[in-house]
């Protein structure tokens, strides 16, 4: 479903991704681990179409050229990013924001928009997945949310927008064990045979909750090793360094 070939990306002349190759099939969950600065978040940014990168290589998503699409077109095609640092939008209600987003995507797909009542019903059902109460929806988008609330809010958006490919960028960072359990529980509930996921993390612990089909190690802008979930355990024991020597 997602095929990345020889993907390069640079910012202001500085090369960050140096030929990433990755293939994710429908329903598969892939994890990417690696040291700081390896290019993990850059990969996520390039996949959603963030401005400011010089990009070459190819990314095909359901047969379409993802790199040729605007961020909103990618969203409509089913690409979703749970941001590492979710953005605050003061004065814009969380509920209003999510309904606007869902309806924009539905419009782009030629589907009817949901009215307020239908959306509310949908939202309330999905909020249970991440154990959020109604007061979240009347607050401004992420404004004054704790770190854990922000991450849960990301997973809630994912539950409402129902993407084909969900990219989780360090969704576990800054979470205590209870919040981690809630967030991971929400993500697991959203695993389906069609929905693929790319989980970016520093910590093996997250992968105990969200068990991946494959684990990749990224170092210096390339995927240097791939394996099963056992690779994550090995990395925890030995660190990334032996991998670099071995490659």
């Amino acid at each position: 479903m997602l095929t990345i070939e020889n993907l390069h990306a640079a910012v202001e002349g500085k090369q960050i991704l140096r030929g990433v190759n990755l293939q994710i099939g429908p329903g598969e969950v892939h994890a990417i681990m690696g040291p700081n600065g390896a290019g993990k978040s850059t990969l996520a940014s390039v996949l959603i179409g963030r401005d400011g990168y010089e990009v070459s290589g190819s990314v095909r998503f359901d047969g379409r050229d993802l790199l040729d699409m605007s961020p909103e077109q990618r969203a409509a095609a089913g690409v979703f990013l749970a941001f590492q640092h979710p953005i605050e939008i003061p004065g814009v209600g969380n509920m209003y924001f999510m309904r606007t987003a869902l309806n924009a995507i539905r419009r782009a797909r030629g589907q009817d928009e949901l009215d307020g009542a239908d959306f509310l019903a949908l939202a309330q059902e999905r909020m249970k997945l991440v154990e959020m109460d109604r007061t979240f929806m009347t607050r401004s988008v992420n404004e004054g949310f704790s770190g854990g609330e922000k991450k849960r809010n990301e997973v809630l958006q994912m539950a409402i927008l129902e993407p084909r490919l969900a990219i989780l960028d360090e969704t576990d960072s800054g979470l205590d064990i209870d919040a981690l359990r809630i967030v991971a529980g929400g993500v697991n509930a959203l695993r389906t045979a069609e929905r693929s996921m790319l989980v970016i993390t520093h910590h093996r612990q997250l992968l105990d909750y969200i068990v991946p089909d494959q684990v990749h190690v990224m170092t210096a802008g390339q995927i240097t090793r791939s394996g099963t979930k056992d690779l994550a355990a090995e990395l925890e024991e030995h660190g990334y360094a032996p991998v670099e020597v071995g490659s």
Partner: protein
Amino acid sequence: MTSGTFEDVHDLTNREYQFGFVTDIESDSAPRGLNEDIIRLISAKKQEPDWLLEWRLRAFRHWVTMDEPTWQHVRYGPVDYQDIIYYSAPKPKPKVGSMDEVDPELREMFNKLGISLAEQERLSGVAVDAVVDSVSVATTMQKKLADVGIIFCSFSEAVRSHPELVRRYLGSVVPYKDNFFATLNSAVFTDGSFCYIPKGVRSPMELSTYFRINAADTGQFERTLIVAEEGAYVSYLEGCTAPARDNNQLHAAVVELVALDNAQIKYSTVQNWYPGDAEGNGGVYNFVTKRGKAAGVNSKISWTQVETGSAITWKYPGVVLTGDNSVGEFYSVALTSRHQQADTGSKMVHLGKNTRSTIVSKAISAGFGENTYRGLVEMRHSATGARNFTQCDSLLIGKQCGAHTFPYIEVKNPTGQVEHEASTSKIGEEQLLYCRQRGIAEEEAVSMIVNGFCREVFKMLPMEFAVEAQALLNVSLEGAVG
């Protein structure tokens, strides 16, 4: 793909001003220029009493000794005050008794503006005093208001029918020597609205005025006076649009509000005068003096404004808080895009004990717009226990606009409390990307972010106005990101 972001939206900057049409109504105009004869002509045209002519002449004689202010943070070429037509009235029509008798062309113009008087009268129950080029053409619902003792009419009519009230309050808040533009207005004002709410009366409806500048090269000098007697309440709405013109048009209005004991005046403005074209040519110069006097104990005056128009804005609606426990409020959204410049804010002058004031200013700059907040909070010796809270937030959209804040605070009473909060933020690429990642197109995202930014002010507007203000902001923003 994404690098087109700003250019795409920039194209929209050049969208035409929606209200840029000219209505062909024969005008009865004075010759260009300003001198005592012109003032006598205006006064005679309006059949004014001698005292008012004398007041105008005193203002004019003072005005010629004054210099145009230069301290404001705006730039514009010199205004030739002798090249302006100071009086222009639509050719006299017989006095209208009902909507049907209003000039069809005028009605058509209002229809284009989306404020059909008939509709407004029928649907919303809003009494509209329509000011076209300085002369009130139609005043509706006067009867219903008269039943509860409210006087709501054109300023000229008030001079004829209630001279004692006009004489008592005219210049009582904004004296004729107040400032260059207010003094000019005092000399040459042609019409405006007058509103008097007697003791203990709550206005049964929102009062509304739509201003429109129509005839070419016509400076417009309205004078509005609202007096709320003890315990009275009124909510007054002012909306303005002007057609596109190549030449800059001067607008120097004066609004005076007087609230006596326990009275409340809520004054709301939505202004979208022609901002000039994409290159910064043309547009209205909006040099306005608006001030209220919270004269009575427990009185309250609130200004709420949403301003998206005019090439240059110079206005500082304020409240002089003389009554003990009186309250002054100012809630403002000012948007400058294209080449618009605004130097605007509020003045709160505390004289009475335990007086309170609140200033919430939201400035949005886009395109090449320059937005300056300038506010004065003054607490005099007598203002024991006075408090002020000021919040100035600026939002920048794009890279070529500017936002500036000049707060002045003078506290002469040691018990005074002043809080000032200020923030400047950019509609960040991050916020936009976040919205777009969720599938929301850039323009819709900008509009959503800006409306969120302004929410504190919008919620102060009367419902029907809030909807209009939001729509107006969206229209203005269609060209704003650049």
